[in-house]
């Protein structure tokens, strides 16, 4: 199956997967491919490997669009542009507060709140949520033909699709309502029993200043809830659109295949449009269809004219070991990849593509183009078969 028409009809590609599997590289390679085919393309990435960021000219940009210079590339179709943006959770979060705050006063109070300032930076889950926010902003502008999103390498990378109450653990509704009721009644002097003891305890343990900051933060945030909820629905609609495709990226390692498998079940469970599976860094052994004995025999004959027999024998033995090792690695990679495919074939639509391991670092446009060739210039297997 040819992946070029697939990319042509897609407007948003979301790449998910474990860390260290080449997810950012894959996202950048897909984006470059889109740009080469004449589309105005944007890749949004979080914390890319620094050299990749440098090669894309991203180092000095936080949350701002940067145009990648393609003038050195041959064969860019007219209209093709590549843009990149590094997502910064903090500034996206700030922008969101600006948008949904009911008044200037509340906005300024939230932005200055101690708890908010630390939360926006250190909060588990805020990055994924902010990624979805930002991409919605960019998509809503409508200035790009294709968007490619690189998600953070965490298993809860799709949690932003849950209800807004779960987006942010900190705003767990139970805690929120308990806290708001408790602190309200404490202000009115009407607090009884458990609440009173708990607030006393919290104050003793965390310090009253912190508890006051937290209460103020929760009260201010409560007013933003409706804004969050409404916007969340719009973000969800974008991710469920048929022109959106989720792709899971893994390497031939048990742990990353497990993560990929987890994401595929999530696609299924959440009814997300599944684009397919990309297995990166697969060992390719060009000799794997050959008979080892005859391969080494031919090598020995070839060396016979140039090297003394004893040396030739050592060389052949050494090359034989290397060849067997590569063969074993290739077979193991293949078995892992096939195992993943067979678990989901027939259950999900989409493609299954293997990308051979590249021994050189992928850190510039020509090497990204090579990755794109490996992805798009060889037929992928359909996941349905």
């Amino acid at each position, binding site marked *: 199956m040819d992946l070029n028409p697939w990319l042509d009809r897609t407007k948003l590609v979301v790449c998910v997967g474990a860390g260290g599997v080449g997810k950012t590289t894959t996202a950048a390679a897909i984006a470059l491919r889109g740009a080469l085919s004449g589309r105005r393309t944007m890749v949004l990435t979080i914390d890319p*490997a620094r050299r990749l960021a440098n090669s894309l000219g991203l180092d000095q940009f936080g949350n701002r669009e940067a145009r990648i210079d393609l003038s050195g590339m041959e064969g860019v179709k007219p209209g093709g542009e590549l843009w990149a943006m590094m997502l910064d959770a903090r500034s996206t979060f700030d922008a969101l507060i600006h948008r949904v705050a009911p008044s200037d006063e509340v906005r300024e109070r939230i932005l200055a709140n101690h708890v908010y300032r*630390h939360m926006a930076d*250190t*909060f588990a889950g805020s990055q994924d949520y902010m990624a979805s926010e930002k991409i919605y902003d960019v998509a809503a502008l409508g200035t790009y033909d294709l968007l490619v999103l690189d998600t953070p390498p965490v298993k809860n990378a799709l949690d932003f699709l849950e209800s807004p109450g779960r987006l942010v653990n900190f705003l*767990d509704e139970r805690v929120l309502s308990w806290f708001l009721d408790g602190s309200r009644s404490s202000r009115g002097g009407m607090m009884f029993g458990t609440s009173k003891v708990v607030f006393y305890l919290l104050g003793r343990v*965390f310090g009253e200043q912190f508890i006051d900051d937290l209460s103020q933060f929760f009260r201010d945030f409560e007013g933003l809830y409706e804004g969050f909820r409404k916007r969340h629905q719009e973000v969800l609609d974008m991710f469920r659109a048929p022109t959106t495709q989720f792709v899971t990226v893994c390497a031939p390692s048990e742990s990353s295949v497990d993560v990929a498998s987890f994401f595929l079940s999530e696609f299924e469970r959440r009814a997300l449009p599944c684009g397919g599976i990309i297995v990166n860094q697969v060992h390719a052994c060009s000799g794997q269809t050959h008979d080892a004995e005859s391969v080494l025999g031919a090598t020995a004959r070839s060396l016979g004219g140039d090297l003394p027999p004893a040396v030739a024998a050592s060389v052949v033995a050494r090359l034989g*070991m290397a060849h067997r090792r590569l063969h074993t690695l290739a077979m193991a990679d293949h078995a892992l990849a096939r195992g993943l495919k067979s678990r989901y074939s027939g259950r999900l639509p989409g493609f299954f593509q293997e990308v051979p391991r590249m*021994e050189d670092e992928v850190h510039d446009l020509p090497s990204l183009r090579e990755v794109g060739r490996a992805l798009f210039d060889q037929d992928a297997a359909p996941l349905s078969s």
Partner: protein
Amino acid sequence: MSVFSRRLLAVAGKGGVGRTTVAAALALAAGARGRRVCVAELYGAWRIQHLFGARARSYTPIPIAPRVDAMSLDAVDCLDDFGRKKLKIGALVKALLHNRVMGAFLDAVPGLHDLQQLGKIENMLMEPGPGEPRYDLVVLDAPATGHSLTMLAGARAMREMTVVGPFHDLAHRIEALLDDHARTGLVLVTLPEALPVREALELVEALGPDAPLLDAIVVNQVRPASVPAEIAGVPWETVRAALVTDPNPDVQAVLATADQFVLRQHAADRALTRLTNAVRARHAAATTCSLPSVDVDQLTADDVRALARSLVHLGDAT
């Protein structure tokens, strides 16, 4: 100064590089040098205890070698401990801490879980209670790299957020321990492959003056080159030249394999050289060492003991 004279060694590195194994081996090596050591895993992990024969996870340190214990921390145990020792809270208040809503609240305070576990380690080292073991050194199996730095920064965030109170004091003590270059050292684990080494390099360059001092880089799972630079005294390039003109596809397949290994080795060597140079330039006192690859499906306690023997002299030679 030897790494083994520290009070706390944080073993960091990306997922899958063998951090836990290296942490266990470092603890055994320190024990062999006469130090009283505890190796600690976080978030309820108990791989080391399991490796040394435990049937169940234990928060209380259990012996795995002479002078060496292993413990498995988790936030709930640590919070209980903290409540008992520092807050001196009664049964009613303790029950409240376990209340469902309170639980969700405590889960949600950024960095609180990390803080509780680091706090326990600080407490074990600095003021062990009556009847508690006294350790010279704790080896911490830190979370995967990205999170390690967040975790270390978390103490500062907590101190700033809380302003006063027991958690503020706890955060303050943890910060003091982590920032103290005499007491705390960082051991970074990586693999002899281009990508993990580049990630280690990025971490080394990102370590600011506030981070713990880098004591050592451990290159784990090193194996002999599949295609060495010389075979039976003949340079690989000579062998290659003899094979490259052969039209036989079988010969070319063998050559392609060899080329792939040679390229990989070169990429790894280049990355390692960059890492070594960066370490030398920025962390002059740090040492680099390598551990051999253990080619087994399931690592045993004996394998870890063998690795420990390779680490006993870590940092001595300089």
